[in-house]
Each structure stands twice: as C-alpha cells, then as structure tokens.
C-alpha cells in the first residue's frame, strides 16, 4: 500500500505566494466552477433559460402593446434585457460563494496554502465567462428573431466590454451578499427584492416618457437606464459617450463602496 501521508520529503515552503502562483490558483478554481458544465450540459441550459424566456416573452407579449410591433420592440428591448440579465447573473457569484460557505468548501480552500484572493477571484473569472456566454446567446437568438446590430464589431465589443466592466463592479456587491447571507436561499430572496425593482424602474423595457413624472426622476438616475442606453447606442447606433461615462462612474462608485466592505467581511469571516 502506498503511504498516505507525511513520509514524503516536503519542499521548502515560501512565506508568500507570488503572482504567478496566485493566478494559477485562480484559474484552477475558475476551472472548478466551469467543469460541471462539461459533464452536465444542462448547466448551460440553466444559464440560458432566463435569457431565452425573457427575450421571447417580452418581445411577443409586450412588444405590440409598447411599440406597436414586435420587431420594433425587439430592437429597443434587447439591450435592456441584456443589461437586466447581466445584473441577475452577477448573483451567481453570491449564490456560489454562499453555497461554498454553508458546505464548508470555503473553509477547506482557506486552509490550503493558496493565494487568499483565489477563492473569490476564481469565482469571478468563471462568472465573467458565463456573462460572455449569455451576451452571445442574446445576440444570437435576438438576430434569429429579427434584431439587427447596426454598428459593427467594434460596437458589439464595446457593449460587451461595458457590460463585463459593470458586472465586475457589481460582483463585489454580490461577494458581500454571499459572505453575509445565512444560506443560498436567502441570497435568492435578497437578490430578487433588489434586482427586480432596480431593473424595472429604468428605461430597459419601456421608454421613460411613458412613466409617471415622479418615477421618471429616478429612472433618469438609475444606472440601468444609462447602461441600457449605452448598449443601445453601441448596438443600434446613437449617442453613447454620456451614457457610457455615467455607467462607468456608477461602476466605479459601486466598486469603491463594495470592495472595501467585501474585503472586510472576507477577512473577518469566522
């Protein structure tokens, strides 16, 4: 029988972890979050059900009522749906983290001689790849249904970059929720009670001018509005700079608030 333990000579252990090793740890943990998809392709479907459903429902149920025609509405709503889906998808990070904590996996990882940031960074890398997948799915399915990108490759790349950038900032809020929530179900509840109103009180699905005046004032501030307008501009043409700048400022603000809070929760996590 092979010896299970301690007899093998141990390499000298450095006191710190270099950036290369830290990156390797992060990639291993990102692999861990994604590998399930390989032997359970249903996972990919899970990621895709909400985009597909929302796209179909919004286009064919509300399209006629809101824009007079489904194809016109699709051109307006797809960027909004992309933004909404991106925001919901940031919660994957919270749910994954919370599951790891409640199952003890988080403690196992923290007891290993790996970079402290790797358990968080690995998740975020994996969840970013999932974001890219969802974006591609929206564009692909949208094109089949009649959505037309009227800008070009640069516009699409710009929209993706903006969405991923915003998602990265939001994932720190997600990390905080994941660290403080008692269990993964609570994350879902917390998440929906924030994300639903946030995404619906914007111009993601309806033009601002159709809303009551008091609501319009919030809608014009809501980062979802600016993101949706920026993505519209990048995909369909139209003004981008102002909306993109405001979106990025929001992202920066969110990051500045939630990175320190998340790191504090991460360090003090007992």
């Amino acid at each position, binding site marked *: 029988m092979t010896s299970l333990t301690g007899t093998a000579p141990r390499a000298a252990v450095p006191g710190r*972890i270099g950036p290369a090793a830290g990156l390797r740890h992060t990639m291993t943990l990102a692999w861990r979050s994604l590998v399930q998809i390989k032997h359970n392709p249903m996972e990919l479907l899970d990621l895709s059900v909400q985009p597909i459903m929302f796209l179909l429902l919004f286009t064919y149920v509300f399209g006629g009522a809101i824009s007079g025609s489904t194809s016109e509405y699709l051109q307006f709503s797809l960027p909004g749906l992309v933004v909404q889906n991106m925001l919901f998808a940031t919660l994957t990070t919270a749910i994954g983290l919370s599951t790891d904590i409640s199952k*003890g996996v988080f403690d196992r990882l923290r007891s290993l*001689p790996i970079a402290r940031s790797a358990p968080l960074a690995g998740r975020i890398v994996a969840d970013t790849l999932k974001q890219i997948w969802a974006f591609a799915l929206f564009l692909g399915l949208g094109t089949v249904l009649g959505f037309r990108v009227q800008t070009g490759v640069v516009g699409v790349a710009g929209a993706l970059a903006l969405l991923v950038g915003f998602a990265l900032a939001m994932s720190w809020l997600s990390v905080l929720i994941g660290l403080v929530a008692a269990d993964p179900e609570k994350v879902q509840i917390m998440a929906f009670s924030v994300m639903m109103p946030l995404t619906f009180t914007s111009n993601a699905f309806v033009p601002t001018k159709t809303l009551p005046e008091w609501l319009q004032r919030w809608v014009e501030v809501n980062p979802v509005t600016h993101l949706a307008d920026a993505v519209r501009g990048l995909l369909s043409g139209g003004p981008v700079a102002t909306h993109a700048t405001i979106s990025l400022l929001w992202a920066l603000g969110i990051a500045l608030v939630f990175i320190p809070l998340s790191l504090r929760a991460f360090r003090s996590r007992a």
Partner: protein
Amino acid sequence: MRYAVQAEGLMKRYGETRALDGVDLAIPEGRLLGVLGPNGAGKTTAVRILATLLRADSGRATVGGFDVAKEPHKVRSLIGLTGQYAAVDETLTGVENLVMIGRLLGLTRAASRQRAAELLDRFALTDAGGRAAKTFSGGMRRRLDLAASLVGHPAVLFLDEPTTGLDPRSRTDLWDVVRGLMADGVTVLLTTQYLQEADELADDIVVFDHGRVIASGTSDELKATTGAQVLQVRPTAAHHLPLVAEVIADLIGERPDLTGGEATVNIKDATVVPAVVRRLDDLGVVASELSLRKSSLDEVFLALTGHRAEDQTSAQEAPTKEKEEVPA
C-alpha cells in the same frame, strides 16, 4: 519530546460569550489527541484557530513549529482539515474534487490524477469516483472529505467531529482509516462528542467544557482521577432496592443512583465491597447482578462537568438522520 501542535492560553470571545477561555494544548509528533466535549464547549473554535481560519484574541499557538498567526501560510502547507460537514463540491465528481486540491497544491495534472486515484482506492471510492459527489451517501462523502484533506500529505491532521451524524458502521470504518493514518506517523487532533470514540482512538484526551480544558490525560488516567471504580448492585426483587440503597449509603457514605432498577455508586476503596455483600446477605437480599468496574469515560465526564456529554446534543441530532442509501 517534539510537539507537532502547541497552544498556550488561547482566548476567543464572541460578544459576551467566551468560546475559548485560556486553552493550553500540546500534541507530541505522531500522536492522536482527542478533544472531548459537548456542543458549544469550544472544540471547533480551537480547531479553527489552529487551522489558521480564525485568529485568537490572545494566546499563541504553533503547528509544526510555525506560529499560526504570524506564519499562517507555512502552517497551511503542513495541515489537513476535515470539518464537521463534508466539505466537498457536490457538483464535481469524486476525482475532480481531489484533482482540484492537487492542482491547488501545485501538483501537475498527471500527478494530481495519480494522487486522486491512490486516495480513492484507499478509501474504497474508486467505483464512485466518476460520479458527482451529490450522489454519494453520507459515509462516502465523509471519506471523500477526508481523502481531500490528505492530498497534500499533511503532517498534522485536524478532524473536527468527523463521525457526527454517521451510522455506526460508517463510524467504525472511519476509525479504521484514522488508525491507518496514525500508523503512517501523522499527528492528529480529533474532536468528538462521543466518549467511546476518544476511548477507541486517542493516545491522550483533553476534556473541554465552556471554553476551558477541565481535565487531561490518557483514557486510563482520566478514569482513575475521578477516583473511580463503580459498584453496581441489582436486587432480584425490585422492592429490595431501597434496602440496597440504605446499605450502600451506610457503608460507603454516599447515596447511590437508583435509575434502571439498580444501585450505582462511585467508590474509592474496593475493599468495602465484601462488607456490602455480607450485609446484603444478612438482610436476605439476593442480588441478580453485582459488579465492580472502572468508571467509563461517560461517568468521568459526568463527574467532571456535572452533566452528561451527549445530553445537549442528542435532542438536536435525533431528527437529522443523514441519508445512507447508495444510489445504484
């Protein structure tokens, strides 16, 4: 003697509660220390501090000579941790769980696979290795969890209530695994609520209660310190029990416990037993059972703390039966 684990004066407070209230521990290399105590005694807090997951408010601790607070990274490279819950990723297969740890520890892909195969074989999980861990039974998950903590050949292993919630057979299986590890020279700190488990496995035992070490020694030493041998007398006729109690109280100077139709009393001096027998004989009391034995760890715990070790938990644990069925 060289110590693999040493702790002095560990304190940890959560608000008003003192989870640890000045704990000292020392485990010589290659020995197994059993930390025995009820829920909330501070066992898990101590393990978490030693495994670098939690900082003590005061006191210091070293593992393998490295300070857990100052050189946590070096400590982490020496230890394996198996917590109270089987900490495996349920969506990954058994193999993938172990390969992930191997890769994180810097093994090549091939070496990680080989190490995973070795461990799965050792823990009788080879056949299940390709299945997602969520399909595993409770016992299989614990074994996978233990395997995961061994990927890096740890010199010191922390087992925090590794058998809580397991059925008796899985429990004894796990004991065999732990004995195998000790044969390999690993130093083990095992926490448990089960007195029998400490008795079976531990070289040394410390008893925790309310964040303090209230007793320590080998199993035999602990049994001896409370003085105790235990005299049990069961009269054939139940109505003789009060009479037996009176005789014992008179000759030993302590009132026996009368639960279960028998009189049970701790005695310090076994020479009193013949006198008890003679007196009972004179009174015409026939005993169907009369025994003198060393007190069990259970009784030691009761004598030390004033409450039974498993009292507080049995009520909570009863409804949470871990599933044991193995899906085909």
